[in-house]
């Protein structure tokens, strides 16, 4: 591990996963930098002044392993690699995010760990993914849904690896604004695994969430159109700068129907 130090910041640059885990410790007072595509503008503008930072770019947390029907993706894997090598619908979702230069730098761990609703959070929810992470009390593995609920708390964690079963089929449908860098304001992911279909949305409610009423309707034998009509049962459409609650509530069932049709 190398450590670069100035009066203002000590930056730890681990060269293996075990060094990263040791350097992170209980996470107290340390800022994790994946690709830095969210954090760097904060640091440059002086809104975030880390005293200690952990730079993951050389930590070797970037393997994508697909074997025996399961998928494991290191938290430091770039979105360029996810777009090229991950199964659907994760690859398509990653490919539609930002632009090639940002994707080459941005990591999956950063997208899932950002409080500002990374587009891939809902995709991992639909995939029923787990995350192995470390921090106070050591390593543990839990559903991504629980990891996301931690936001706002003070339990700092270092995500190490995401895991999920290789799905039978998956689809991803999103709305874009006419601009080179749209964060989508609404996207729906559908995944078929065994006899179950799982559906999750970004932009239906604040944060990302599954749509259990749609899933239940499908399990009960409803047609994709009828199931999609249940999308609002679990949504709390909201107003923000990108779309009004009124618009979201009208678009959501259509996107769910499209995602189910594409499965």
């Amino acid at each position, binding site marked *: 591990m190398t450590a670069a130090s100035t*009066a203002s*910041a000590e*930056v730890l640059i681990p060269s293996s996963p075990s060094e990263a885990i040791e350097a992170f410790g209980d996470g107290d007072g340390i800022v994790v930098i994946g690709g830095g595509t969210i954090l760097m*503008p904060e640091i440059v503008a002086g809104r975030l002044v880390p005293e200690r930072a952990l730079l993951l770019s050389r930590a070797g947390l970037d393997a994508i392993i697909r074997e025996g029907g399961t998928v494991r993706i290191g938290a430091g894997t770039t979105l360029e690699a996810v777009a090229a090598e991950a199964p659907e619908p994760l690859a398509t979702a990653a490919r539609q995010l930002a632009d*090639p230069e940002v994707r080459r730098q941005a990591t999956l761990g950063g997208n899932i760990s950002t409080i500002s609703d990374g587009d891939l959070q809902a995709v991992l929810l639909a995939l029923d993914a787990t995350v192995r992470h470390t921090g106070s009390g050591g390593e543990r593995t839990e559903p991504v849904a629980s990891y996301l609920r931690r936001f706002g708390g003070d339990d700092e964690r270092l995500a190490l690896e995401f895991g999920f079963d290789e799905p039978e089929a998956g689809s991803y449908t999103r709305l874009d604004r006419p601009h080179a860098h749209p964060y989508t304001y609404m996207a729906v992911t559908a995944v078929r695994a065994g006899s179950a279909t799982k559906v999750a949305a970004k932009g239906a409610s604040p944060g990302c969430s599954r749509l259990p009423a749609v899933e239940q309707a499908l399990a009960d034998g409803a047609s994709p159109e009828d199931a999609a009509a249940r999308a609002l049962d679990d949504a709390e459409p909201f107003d923000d700068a990108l779309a009004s609650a009124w618009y979201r509530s009208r678009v959501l069932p259509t996107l769910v129907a499209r995602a189910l049709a594409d499965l």
Partner: protein
Amino acid sequence: MRLMVNGAEQEVDSGPLASLLHVLREELDITSPKAGCQQGGCGACTVLVDGKPQRSCLTPLASVEGAMITTVEGLGDAGELTAVQQAFYAKYGAQCGYCTSGMMLAATALIDATNGDGVTRQEIEEVMGGHLCRCTGYVKIIEAVEAASRGETFDLEELRRAGTAGGEETMILDTGGQS
């Protein structure tokens, strides 16, 4: 910390979390990477890191120790414009020039990756879609990249002469080294 910029080793004093953009412009006086949005959204600051285009405003200095950084100042041989630079000039791919160095570096990396096979319009739009230009309307830029990817070269002296034909001078700005 030591940094390799345009083939020369540089010793820099900025902190490890300073952006590469800041180090290039403020410490090394290399002003072709522009500080546009400084949020990753415009591509004006793009440089090549080990031959691949990367937003220097999003890049912490500590992450590029040992890497080869290239800015447009380091393209081609001294006094000679590369095919991409010639094409941007000849095809009017640059107006105010603010986006131009990022555009040219992204185009250079794209063309290098195709080993002279030419690039499609779709590939150019995909790879350079994150680069914003407020002047050209993009058409001229795309035509310039297509021309460079086909290996077209231009007689710039001839173009300059043609530009002054009929007494009308082509506006060639002498910035006196300012940027």
